[in-house]
């Protein structure tokens, strides 16, 4: 277990940001951390990045306890916050050299690493540009370049795709996929769920400081699938078809919406071939019949209550 939290609790005065959080992330995983605004994602990441002390409970990174062994943790992690901290009058190369020195990387090794990281993040042609003048996408790439300097085991990224245009988002996603392939453990929080579904091996959903789900994306989808929804399109009389379908066993509801009949089945029913059979018996033709797809977004909406602290 590369990241583990046990009863992790964080209070800001009367506000409980995290409440007995139990989180477990295996080495080499790409873990998507999702939740509504104010759910406690940033607080969790800041605690794991040794920036905050837990009020109660324990957080471990690479086996070291946050707060007691923070100095041992810092060389092992790379933290990308949800903002970009820029120094005035510093160019890209100086920015990276500055942080390389902070990780005690000096001399020729530093030049080599900075050069490699600039190449990896495709920033080599920007090395003499002032950091302040970079676009948001470039700054985000520079942030990732910064955390790669010391070759950390764990990357913690807080909303890395926030505010980026589609191209920059795709570039960042591809970069993170590459880093995952290289064996890095990645903890990433984001609101852009389709991208997380594409990138992550497992996810955690947090709401009001409590972890309400942890597992694979497939598992989240399955959990959210409380009852199948089937969409039926018929060129014949839709009202007659609706009347027929509502009366069928295992059908909870059927309604006409946007030229389709939306049929909700009960939670135990997964096979919907009986709908086709019933319609054919009633001489109602079928143009299209398909099960509604449940994706991570739908799963998130179903699993969370949407209560913001």
């Amino acid at each position, binding site marked *: 277990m590369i990241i583990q939290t046990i009863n992790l609790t964080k209070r*800001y005065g009367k506000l409980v940001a995290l409440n007995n959080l139990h989180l477990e992330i295996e080495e080499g995983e790409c873990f998507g951390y999702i939740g509504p605004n104010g759910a406690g994602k940033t607080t969790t990441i*800041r605690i794991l*990045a*040794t*920036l*905050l*002390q837990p009020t109660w409970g324990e957080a471990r990174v690479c086996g070291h306890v946050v707060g007691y062994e923070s*100095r041992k943790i*810092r*060389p092992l*992690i790379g*933290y990308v*916050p949800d*903002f970009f*901290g*820029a*120094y*005035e*009058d*510093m*160019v*890209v*190369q*100086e920015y990276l*050299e*500055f*942080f*390389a*020195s*902070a*990780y*005690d990387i*000096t001399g020729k090794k530093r030049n080599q690493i900075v050069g490699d990281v600039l190449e990896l993040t495709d920033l080599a042609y920007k*090395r*003499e*540009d*002032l950091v*302040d*003048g970079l676009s948001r996408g470039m700054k985000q790439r520079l942030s990732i370049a*910064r955390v790669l300097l010391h070759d950390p085991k764990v990357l913690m990224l807080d909303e890395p795709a926030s505010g980026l245009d589609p191209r920059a988002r795709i570039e960042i996603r591809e970069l993170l996929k590459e880093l995952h392939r290289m064996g890095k453990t990645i903890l990433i929080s984001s609101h852009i769920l389709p991208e997380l579904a594409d990138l992550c091996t497992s996810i955690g959903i947090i709401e009001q400081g409590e972890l309400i789900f942890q597992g694979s994306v497939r598992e989240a989808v399955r959990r959210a699938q409380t009852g199948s929804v089937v969409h039926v399109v018929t060129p014949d009389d839709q009202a007659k078809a609706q009347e027929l379908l509502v009366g069928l066993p295992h059908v909870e509801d059927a309604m006409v919406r946007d030229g389709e009949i939306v049929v909700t089945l009960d939670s135990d029913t997964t096979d919907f071939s009986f709908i086709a059979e019933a319609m054919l018996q009633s001489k109602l033709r079928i143009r299209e019949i398909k099960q509604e797809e449940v994706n991570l977004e739908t799963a998130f909406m179903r699993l969370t209550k949407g209560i913001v602290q």
Partner: protein
Amino acid sequence: MGILRDIGTWLWRLLPGNPILVRVVSTGSKRTRHLWARLIYLAVLMVVFLAAGRLLIGGGESLADLAKQATRTFMYVSLVQLFLMSFVAPVFCAGAITQEKDANTYHILLTTPLSNAQIVLGSLLSRLYFVWVLLLAGLPIFCVTMIHGGVTTTEVFESFGLAACTGLVTGSIAIMISFTKVGTRRTIFSFFIGVAVYLLGVAGIGLSSFGQLPEAPVATGMAQSQSALRMSWLAPVHPLLALLVVTGQTNAPLPSDVHHYGWPARWLLAYPQYGYMVLTTLASGLMVLLSLIWVRRGTKEGEATILSRVLDRFVPQTDGRRRHKARRVWRNPIAWREAATRASAGGRSLLRLLFILAGFVFGVILLVMHHSGSMGPGAVGAALTRAWLVPLVWIELAVILLVVTNTAATTLTREKETQTIELLLSTPLTSRYIIAGMLQGLVRLVVPLIAVPTLTVALFAGADLLHRAQGNPVVTVEAVFMIPVVMTAFTALAAIVGLHFSLLSRKTVQAVMISTAVVMGGAGLLTACGWAMRGTNVHVAGAVLPFTPVWSVQALLDPWEAAERASPVNWSTGSSGVSPRSVVAFRVTRTLFSLIAATVYLAITYALYSSMVRGFDMTVRRQST
């Protein structure tokens, strides 16, 4: 009727109903910080009132005595009120320079239906509201001074008018800087220093013989007992000099005496207090007008201007990318950043170079004047040269202390404001390493500055050695070694004080103001203590003066003057009893105690440093939550 109603609505929304002003007035008064500021302000006025007048604790024997005491109380309270206002107004108005920028509300404001006038006047008056309310809070204290006579209602209103106008003009300057979009956090310090330099510099000129108006009658006030004082021709442009007229310390000339100056100079000189009010109000109006014109300039950043088009003809065109060659980062990245990026940004390198050049040029001119005989022959010439050299080093020391305090005060707050502190804290850098790096960077910044007075003194010492035959040295040899030692000690303490408040404060403005006040206040207090101890005896003076920045410099550079002041006066001859032996005794004592003082200052610096290192993590993490 419709037009009148529209004008009425427009005027209502311009001032009393201005949304920006209404927000500040309805919420600002409830802030604990403001209540504390009001309490402290009134407490200071009250203490001065009680100490100066002794009105409430007795002391007056007759009605005439009470009236005299009331006049004296009024003078001191007015002076303190003006002093506080000169300090408080820039403090509260300086925030306007970056507030909109910090809160990212500037562009939002410009997209609302608020007119330029509403935005500018709303911002100005919301700043002035607090300053003027503070001023009004002190009115009851002034009313008490009027009970016993000796103070007229007009004088009280004139005193308040001067203070209020000082607040108005300061606020207008801050607002103009803010709206012309040149305001950054760096500007705040320059603004602060600019106000201080104007107030002190013009007051100094005004009180000198050069600044006095020949047509003005010699004062009959209380200051007359010390030296004859005439009103300064700078009184209409300086609040303190105008207040001296209001409180009767100087007298304004009769209009007929200054008739030959022509209008408006004759009116300004005859009624300097009103002149100051009118001039500051006009200047404020002009600055508000400029702000109105420039208020939307901030949205046009990057657009071509007439100047940029002209420059483009002469300077090779760039591709618009802001870039420069990468510099080598040192082993301690924090120290490198402090020295290479922070200290050199925004033309600070140029300012430092100017300081160094100016210091050397003044020093060399003084040396040339001394050796060419322009300062007079022998001991008289040497004494006169020292009389110029000591203030020169004082000014250099003051500048160094201000620069180092300001730079140190901005180090950590800037990290907090740009949130780079979080990046640093997630690296393996320890608090000791971060603070030591910052100090190292500050040292690199300050060393060339301290070299200026050191080399100036060394030049004089070298020249003294070459012209040994004259027998009247300008400076002592030990001063060459001791000046850098004591200056380094004072500077180190100022730097650690700045760093300390930078750690404790969340905002740069707050850190700069508090640390500057503490360093300058502390230096002022020590100077006052040193002043009181100067006339004791050579051994006591030699032991005490090195602990005070101002007198330490004088004791090192001019031990003859210091020893003379510390020696008993020979009443039979009327001269002081300074002897070569006394001078030697003073030199030995002050050299020894300069070393001790430097050690004490450095020990305090180290203690503060250790305490900062211990509390760094806890303080920063507490602030980040």
